[in-house]
């Protein structure tokens, strides 16, 4: 199979995840809870972002043994994170047949200039982006799915909202441009012309676009879906809360019926304590600034 066919299949797997919730899990038990709650995939990692933030130090790819245990525990796709630019970690994740690699700013970047050349891999990659330029650069490097960067581990949705709004606004701008203006747009965004042209012709990214970072409640999930996300990642929001199973189920249903306010009200009732959260202005390390 050639690389193009493989890339199409990888984009198509992301299409199957749409309208779903991808949950961070650190143990096989959590993975089972997530699957039973209706997660469409799980992200296997040693520490959830809130704890990575609290612990400080260098955050790396998780132990493959722990990832394999999670793969054995669930039937839904399993994703795992590698550091930005760390293609050797990505090779290891491919070797254990991970379903999706997240080249993630949540971990400490391994390379402050180059991202991974994702076209060299058979497994798919999802990458974070805070604007259209970043999204299209990651796609040109071979990412087959995009997510907002948000600000992981904070429970504060403000950055995910900012990234999603910015991306949607920039796409709307491109859609309204004259054809001869696209060359300059490509230059301004620092991306290949062909991708800008795709956005103009289709009014959307050539890959699936999820929301991630700071989503902690059914309302947060519904907000991101209404802003144009095709699904959501929930990291610390679930297993840092009082009743993870109940909250997880509520977020799953909120993503399916994100416009039904009466149902959202019902889903938001009695969920127990939400993760405490840190406001954007209170944090010292902005992970979203990693990798541009």
């Amino acid at each position, binding site marked *: *199979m050639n690389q193009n*066919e493989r890339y*199409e*299949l*990888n984009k*198509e*797997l992301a*299409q*199957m*995840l*749409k*309208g*779903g919730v991808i949950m961070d899990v650190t143990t096989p038990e959590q993975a089972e809870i997530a*699957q*039973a709650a*209706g*997660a*469409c*995939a799980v992200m296997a990692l040693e520490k959830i972002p809130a704890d990575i933030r609290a612990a400080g130090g260098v955050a790396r790819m998780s132990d493959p043994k722990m990832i394999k245990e999670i*793969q054995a525990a669930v*039937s*839904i*796709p*399993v994703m795992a994170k590698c550091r930005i630019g760390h293609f050797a970690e990505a090779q290891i994740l*491919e070797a254990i*047949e*991970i*379903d*999706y690699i997240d080249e993630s700013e949540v971990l400490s970047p391994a390379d402050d200039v180059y991202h991974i050349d994702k076209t060299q891999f*058979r*497994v*798919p990659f999802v990458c974070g982006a805070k604007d259209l330029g970043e999204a299209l650069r990651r796609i040109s490097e071979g990412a087959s799915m995009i997510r907002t960067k948000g600000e992981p581990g904070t429970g504060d949705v403000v950055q995910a909202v900012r990234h999603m709004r910015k991306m949607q606004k920039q796409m709307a701008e491109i859609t309204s441009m004259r054809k001869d203006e696209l060359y300059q747009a490509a230059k301004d965004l620092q991306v290949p012309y062909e991708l800008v042209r795709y956005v103009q012709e289709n009014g959307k990214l050539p890959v699936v676009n999820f929301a991630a970072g700071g989503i902690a409640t059914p309302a947060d999930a519904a907000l991101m879906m209404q802003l144009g996300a095709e699904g959501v990642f929930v990291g610390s929001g679930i297993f840092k809360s009082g009743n993870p199973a109940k909250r997880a*189920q509520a977020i*799953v*249903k909120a*993503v*399916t*019926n994100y416009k*039904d306010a009466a*149902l959202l009200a019902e889903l938001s009732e009695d969920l127990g304590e939400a993760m405490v959260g840190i406001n954007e202005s209170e944090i010292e390390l902005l992970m979203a600034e990693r990798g541009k």
Partner: protein
Amino acid sequence: MKAAVLALQGAFAEQEHMLGEMGVEYFEIRRKQDLGQEFDALILPGGESTVMGKLMRELGLMEPIREKIKNGLPVLGTCAGLILLAGELSDGEAPHLATLPVTVKRNAYGRQLGSFRTEAAFGKTGEIPMVFIRAPYIEKTGEGVEVLAKVDGHIVAVRYKNQIGVSFHPELAGVRSVYEMLFAKAG
């Protein structure tokens, strides 16, 4: 002719795009009240069957949809949709609608690295492109089930009365013949 698309999770927009291309009117089923509308055919899309099954149960969709299928509503299940229809799942998981007398093996080709594209004969329409994404296949068929396609010896498409189940994604490859077969049943 009006089709309903189960739009709880997964690639329902791709199904809708396909219906749009074919000039077929459609609407989405996300809640129980959506079933109040009249429709002639139902499409169960690809996605995660565990998610769709759970949501169908909890949103009160499982029983009414099962009834409609049993009463002859033409239905097409693709990939996860086939799993929803299956009477039995070989991993021992509880079946969902269980209206189609087949045993389906989930993730039968392994993880994403096992996903592939191929061409194979489908019913009487000759070869069609088939896209398999973490796909299931059919291990056993019950009485009266017609096999429509096989890939490498494994059954990947069947028809049983008003139900069509396929392991692959006709909506991704733009294969009209699968839909035409469904709509022929819808009259």
